[in-house]
């Protein structure tokens, strides 16, 4: 209390004219934002709104659940399920017949469930490195080329064009055959991104070309904001939906190509890199496609591949909704409370768009 009065007297002393007019620099917000409020807003923006949006759409629900299921299977599964070995069970046990081998066994008595779970771990590692590298390189190269134009664009676009023109899978195949890649899943992911980033970079570049003359970019340039800040703070966030969708696309591509490389046995099979491609290869080598009763040997890894990639496509679509500001505004509670009439106008606007 005494402190307070003291400070007030010194303030008054400073004003020689004795007037009581507050300087605008002294005004502080009349609303106090406590730490709790700040957490609530963060929770609202980053957790509540995305989850609410995702949960609204059945497709998004399926996609989210599927991807989460695979991540859990890859991370937690190996803790509960033991790696399988030759002659663990009878040969070619059919799926859904025996609780010891829910997905059946292959012709050497190895448990299909265990193989699938351990494959998921490997595939998740490949996806992590492959998708991040592909999207990272593609986005950076594409947006810089599109925004800068001129000589920089010519150089970057030429490099991009070379990589687009190289047939991705054969290139990766030759590199995998010639380079000592070994069985490290992260290295396989990086290898796969070599043939994949070009298309994304070109697509991002043409997206940037459409927004480089938008008012907010021109304004940022007019204000003398350095190029790297414009690219990373103005342009890339604007392309975020596109980038995120492509992240899931890149993940899908990594799965497809990695499985193909292992299916063709181009990459050496090690026990640390067990994956669905290896299972498919073994099934094909042992002639499961014409042997009776061996169909599940193909179908189990195939279902695993298709399931994960359905999940990724649906997740990509739902993330697009999360990033879309118009869909977002509807779900953020704080935004609607503060925004009042404006956000209502936005809602109406959106409804019109939806109807037309």
């Amino acid at each position: 209390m005494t402190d307070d009065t003291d400070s007030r007297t010194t303030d008054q002393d400073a004003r020689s004219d004795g007037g009581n007019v507050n300087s605008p620099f002294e005004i502080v917000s009349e609303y106090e934002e406590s730490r709790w409020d700040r957490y609530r807003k963060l929770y609202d923006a980053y957790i509540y709104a995305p989850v609410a949006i995702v949960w609204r759409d059945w497709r998004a629900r399926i996609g989210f659940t599927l991807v989460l299921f695979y991540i859990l299977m890859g991370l937690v599964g190996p803790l509960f399920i033991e790696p399988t070995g030759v002659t663990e069970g009878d040969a070619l046990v059919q799926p859904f017949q025996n609780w010891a081998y829910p997905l059946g066994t292959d012709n050497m008595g190895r448990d299909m469930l265990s193989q699938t779970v351990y494959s998921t771990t490997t595939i998740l590692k490949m996806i992590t490195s492959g998708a991040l590298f592909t999207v990272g390189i593609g986005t950076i190269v594409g947006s810089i080329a599109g925004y800068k134009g001129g000589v920089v664009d010519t150089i970057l676009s030429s490099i991009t064009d070379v990589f687009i023109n190289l047939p991705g899978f054969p290139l990766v195949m030759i590199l995998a055959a010639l380079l000592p890649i070994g069985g490290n899943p992260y290295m396989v992911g990086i290898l796969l991104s070599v043939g994949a980033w070009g298309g994304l970079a070109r697509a991002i570049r043409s997206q940037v070309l459409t927004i480089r003359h938008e008012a907010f970019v021109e304004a940022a340039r007019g204000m003398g904001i350095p190029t790297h800040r414009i690219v990373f703070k103005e342009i890339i966030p604007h392309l975020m939906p596109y980038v995120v969708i492509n992240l899931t696309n890149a993940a899908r591509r990594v799965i497809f190509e990695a499985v193909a490389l292992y299916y063709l046995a181009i990459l050496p099979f090690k026990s640390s890199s067990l994956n669905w491609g290896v299972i498919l290869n073994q099934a094909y080598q042992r002639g499961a496609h014409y042997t009776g009763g061996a169909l599940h040997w193909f179908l189990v890894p195939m279902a695993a591949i298709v399931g994960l990639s359905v999940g990724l496509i649906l997740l990509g679509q739902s993330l697009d909704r999360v990033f879309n500001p118009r869909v977002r505004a509807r779900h953020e509670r704080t935004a609607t409370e503060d925004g009042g009439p404006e956000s209502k106008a936005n809602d109406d606007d959106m409804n019109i768009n939806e109807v037309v």
Partner: protein
Amino acid sequence: MVNIGWRIRRIGQTVFTLWVVLTLTFVLVRLLPGNPMGAMVQQLIQQGVNPARARHLVELRLSVDPTKPIPYAYVDYMVNMLQGNLGTSMYYSEPVVDIIARSLPWTLFVLSWSLFISFFMGVIIGALMAYWEGSKLDVGLTSWAILMGSTPYYVLALLLLIFFAYRWGIFPTSGRQPTGVPPGFSVAYVTGILRHAALPVLSMLVASGVASLGMRGNSIRVLGENYLRVARLRGLSDVTISTQYVARNAVLPMYTAFLISLGEMFGGSVVLEQVFSYRGLGWYMLSATYQRDYPLMMGMFTVLTIAVVLALLIADLTYSLVDPRAGGQKSEAY
């Protein structure tokens, strides 16, 4: 209207790409640690060939002289490549060019069919989904498209092989032409070829899933435009609006996706042809990789790349005919 300067630049870019690819194959063959050339010389020496003769044989096969300094070897290699001399296959003991001439038409045959059918399907299905957005038809077709897009072509290929060829015997299990029928324009031969190509073509139709989703998105964007409201007010029929107004404008952005999927399909021919033992470019490339037949492997890679590069060049040069708005004019540099 026709932008000559842009076309010249585009062709220049193609030449640049081809140069990079040839250089890349040279680097892979000659410079990499544990490179194929060294491996081949070692292989021959181990088989009892004396070192000088081994180097000479390798030079003949790879068009790369192992003893020459790298710059000279590079110039020789490029001259050989430009003369169409891609070396000699070690496994088949015949010029790589001959093997290419034998296998390229088959790959082109399968790929062109699958490319056009899947693109056509994608456009039509995408337009239907967008036009009846939110309806049961949309939900059903979208689910179908997502399932297609989630299935790798080789998974579909294996399934088709198992069921249509091995279980039900509707289509042949392997090969590219009917046995016992003389090649020619006879009915038996042509239908035989078509039956052999049917399953590979069908497998590649998974590409239509992604294409139709892209088309759906584009069409929905176009459907929001004002000129469509005007078209509706004019009382034009749904068919006219969807084909003349929506499809035309929505197809154009699909062009890029089409081009990229072209390259991917060429790449995919390796796995596809393995599944069906369809002796095209991809099949030979894969068998060369297994056999460590480096001249054939590199030759096939070069040819696959040239095919993709030329296809993209042709497509780019004709794009301005499709979309008059697309010019090659350079945008202002910041």
